[in-house]
């Protein structure tokens, strides 16, 4: 299957601290890949490298065969790579409708329409309604983002990224800060939305092993900045040592 995103010998150092060392991973089309590992294993650093937020100390990150060094998030989004952050990112004063519309405006390349009416643009409106519907936010279109519940904010955060029609989306702990009851609901919504939106791949950083087991086709386990395993879930969960090294350390906290 086509390779969408890959790292070639990527390392990241912060001074003397080596956050990631010699990482070689591949994300192909049509897969949901989970990145797991104890706190401090380098999961978020990896996602930040994969999305160009950080530049690797050595090695390179390729998206569809081209290096993403120095491209910047705007052009990455145009090429089809988007992400969400671990901490929910919203536009507090914008409504749900406006938040999704901001992405749709980018996608439809209408950002320099200085005098056009946003409200009367049917093409934007239709797409916003569609995305809101997929994420169950259709009833909340007029609500300012700051007034949403935590779960709704998370959905909105991801919905706005989906509105860019990406090929690949990287979700940094999409269910963090959300109640256990809501977690599966959010994950199901995300996976279903990705399918409907034609997103080819999802990279998921996740702590919750139930979610990882339920939704991913491949698991990349990181430990102390290195890739410990890169396996399908059935083989990953068949190895007690692996599970111990990923979850065991968390139990001691």
């Amino acid at each position: 299957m086509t390779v969408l995103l890959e790292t070639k010998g990527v390392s990241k150092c912060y001074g003397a601290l080596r956050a990631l060392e010699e990482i070689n991973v591949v994300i192909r089309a049509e897969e949901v890949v989970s990145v797991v590992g104890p706190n401090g294993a380098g999961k978020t650093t990896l996602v930040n490298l994969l999305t160009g937020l950080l530049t690797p100390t050595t090695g390179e990150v390729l998206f569809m065969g081209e290096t993403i060094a120095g491209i910047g998030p705007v052009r990455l989004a145009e090429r089809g790579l988007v992400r969400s952050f671990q901490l929910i990112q919203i536009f507090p004063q914008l409504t749900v409708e406006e938040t999704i519309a901001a992405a749709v405006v980018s996608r439809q390349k209408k950002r320099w329409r200085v005098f056009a009416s946003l409200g009367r643009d049917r093409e934007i409106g239709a797409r916003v309604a569609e995305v809101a519907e997929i994420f169950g936010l259709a009833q909340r279109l007029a609500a300012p983002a700051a007034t949403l519940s935590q779960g709704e904010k998370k959905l909105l955060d991801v919905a706005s990224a989906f509105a860019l029609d990406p090929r690949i989306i990287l979700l940094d702990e999409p269910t963090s800060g959300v109640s256990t009851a809501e977690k599966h609901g959010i994950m199901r919504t995300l996976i279903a939305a990705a399918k409907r939106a034609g997103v080819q791949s999802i990279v998921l950083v996740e702590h919750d092993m139930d979610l990882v087991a339920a939704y991913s086709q491949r698991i990349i386990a990181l430990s102390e900045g290195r890739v410990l395993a890169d396996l399908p879930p059935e083989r990953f969960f068949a190895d007690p040592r692996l599970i111990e090294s990923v979850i065991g350390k968390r139990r001691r906290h």
Partner: protein
Amino acid sequence: MTRAPLALAVLVGAIGLALLPLLAPSYYASLMIPFFGYAIALLGFNLLFGYTGLLSFGHAMFLGFGAYGAAVLAGKLGITSFEIVLIAVMASAALVALPIGLFCVRYVGIFFGMLTLAFGMLFYSFLFKFYHVTGGDSGMRVPRMNILGLEFAQYNKIEFLAGPFYYYSLALLIIAAAVMWRIVHSPFGLHLKAVRDNARKAEYLGVHVHRFRLAAFVISAAYGAAGGAILGFRVGLADPELVYWTQSGQLVFMAVLGGFSNFFGPIVGAFAFTLLQDQLQSLTQYWRFILGAVLAVIVIAFPEGLAGLAGSLRRTRAGKTA
């Protein structure tokens, strides 16, 4: 906000302003000219502040471009049409704002504010020191110009300002506000608001954060120059005081007074400030003290400004009847 009461309030305001020269003494009509000038400048200022989240402390620089531009074009080059002068000063302010903005928009918050302040003071010292070009502290004369190709020679200066020029400036304000309304309600305006609320997130949604900040800066410069040209025309003088940092502070004051989170806030603020300052100056020599106290009360008790206050009063009343 519901549209109907808002449209009604705007209509009442516009009609009130249109009737003012007929009902009030001509003093008040000519007092309103600076209001029109400041209101236009503030519409631009607020595109930058209220909509893009960048607080400029050097915006009087653009008022100065407008006034001095008018002085040069009309006084030195002999252009008699105010429309041509307006378009020329707006275009040149936008052009000058481009390199200045390129520097400034790389920073946000206090750093952006300080940089704009620095550029404003740079322009001020240029005006002040290069007196053979700029007239130094005595400024440059802004001669009377034609409006819409008409000279209005039968009117003396006060009659002209309180009559034709009053309506002309009112019309300019309405046009400027209508254009700005379109800008803030466009896809472009939405991206500006996204930049204001969360630049990091905006970037990942495909918003060109720097370019949009720059665009807002350039547009606000053009608005500032238009306002400055009106101010210069009214006094007949382009004065370096117009560019001094206290003038920039006054623009911030007006925006906060009226409410920068509301489209009409800057207009309300310019109106309230102009009237308040005039009335207080005639009452007491301590008018600055009272103005300062008013600002403190607004910031502490009504952070949304006068326009926001009107909005929340209406909402509570609607809540009671509901």
